[in-house]
């Protein structure tokens, strides 16, 4: 199968501080990759760099997405190309309603792909359908983006947005953090229903728990800005039981 995302020797810094120190990663369509690792290992930085956050400077290496130089694209251009980042800390935007936000996003992406904008009826139907997927109450649509949402509601809103936009590469940055078991199940169900042979997921998580629900093809362990171990899904359980120390020692 074709490689959807190819990361080669990726180095990235914040100011003087180097956070990513040579990441290599190949992801093919249809795959789910989990990235685990202790706090401060660079997991969130990797997702932010892939989404185009300007706080980070790429100092070396390359990222090829669907044959294109991903790093040359603006954040919105990455979204048009089918990249989606589920935020660890979704941003509250008072005054912008969820419905207007999603309408602007969906129709802009359609425009960029040469499709007609959805009319009001089509849009509302799509919105209802996707909200049901994450068990979100319809009253959320008129509220400000994430304003007054609980932690779990914010994460469900991320999955809802992902469902609306149908990305080809979704990066979920600790979507499970701060979720109770019910919310976790809802989020995971949403993700599983969106898995297709032509898309791929990068699931960043601290806990094995999420990977009980979203079963990955591959697990990578990130430590000090490098991937120090890559293995199958059984690795998650081993990490849950033994922690990261043994892997870190193995790699040193």
């Amino acid at each position, binding site marked *: 199968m074709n490689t959807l995302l190819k990361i080669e020797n990726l180095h990235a810094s914040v100011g003087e501080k180097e956070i990513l120190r040579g990441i290599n990663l190949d992801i093919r369509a249809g795959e789910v990759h989990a990235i685990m690792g202790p706090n401060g290992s660079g997991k969130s930085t990797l997702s932010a760099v892939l*989404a*185009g*956050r*300007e706080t980070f400077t790429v100092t070396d290496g390359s990222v090829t997405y669907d044959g294109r130089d991903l790093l040359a694209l*603006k*954040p*919105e251009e*990455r*979204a*048009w190309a089918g990249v*989606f*980042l589920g*935020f660890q800390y*979704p*941003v509250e*935007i*008072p*005054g*912008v309603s969820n419905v*207007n*936000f999603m309408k*602007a*996003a969906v129709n*802009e*992406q359609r425009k*960029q792909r040469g499709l007609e904008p959805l009319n009001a009826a089509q849009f509302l139907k799509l919105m209802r359908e996707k909200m049901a997927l994450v068990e979100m109450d319809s009253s959320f649509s008129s509220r*400000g*983006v994430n304003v007054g949402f609980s932690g779990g509601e914010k994460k469900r809103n991320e999955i809802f*947005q992902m469902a609306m*936009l149908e990305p080809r590469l979704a990066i979920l940055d600790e979507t499970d953090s701060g979720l109770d078991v019910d919310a976790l199940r809802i989020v995971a169900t949403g993700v599983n229903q969106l898995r297709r042979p032509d898309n791929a997921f990068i699931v960043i998580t601290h806990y094995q728990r999420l990977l009980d629900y979203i079963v990955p093809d591959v697990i990578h362990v990130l430590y000090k800005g490098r991937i120090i171990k890559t293995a199958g899904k059984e690795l998650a359980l081993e990490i849950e039981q033994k922690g990261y120390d043994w892997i870190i020692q193995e790699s040193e």
Partner: protein
Amino acid sequence: MELRLIHHPEGPQRIALEAGTAAEYLVLQDAAGATSATDWEIQLAEGARLQMVFLSLDGDTLRNCLRVSLQGRHASCDLAGLCLADGTQRMDYDIVLMHEVPQCHSTQLFKNIVGGQAVTRFDGLIKVVPDAQQTEAYQANHNLLTTETAKAFTKPQLEIYADDVKCSHGATIGRLNPDELFYLRSRGIPEKEARLLQQLAFCYEVLEKISAAEMREDLRQKIEERLRKMA
């Protein structure tokens, strides 16, 4: 309640609400190149309620000078304003709001979006006389600068001579939140549109004060058109 529209006020304006009456006013200034200085004398008798929104959306030099006097108990005055200034425009609000008797209520919410080399000025004073116990008075002025050369001056002031009151005043001057901007762009909304959404969101709080839904939607569109031209 009927909304009274004052479009391009000319000359001194006087609003006096008699005891127990209520009124809602909308002041709209949206003529490009207009210059005006308007004095507003506003008096509220016992139990009178005034809701007033000023929209200074376009103009060359606009100055509104408000002298508000709450003269009867339980009078309530809610003032809100929005300035959209760019180019070399200048928009000033000068407000003195007097709590002359006990148990009155007032709010002020004034927001400015300042681009180009424009200058806005907010000078607002709440004065609570010694007698005016159990006053509630709140004032806020928030400024959003969209260029390096835009300027906003703000001077929120409180003078309180009574000891049993609830009052606050505050001001901010800032730029668009980069986290919000990135969030919007990451969903595929182009930078220019994302900035526009953020600016509309900034205006929303003032717009919300207008109770007539149809009028509010018309004004929202007017504000959006104006912001697009400012961009």
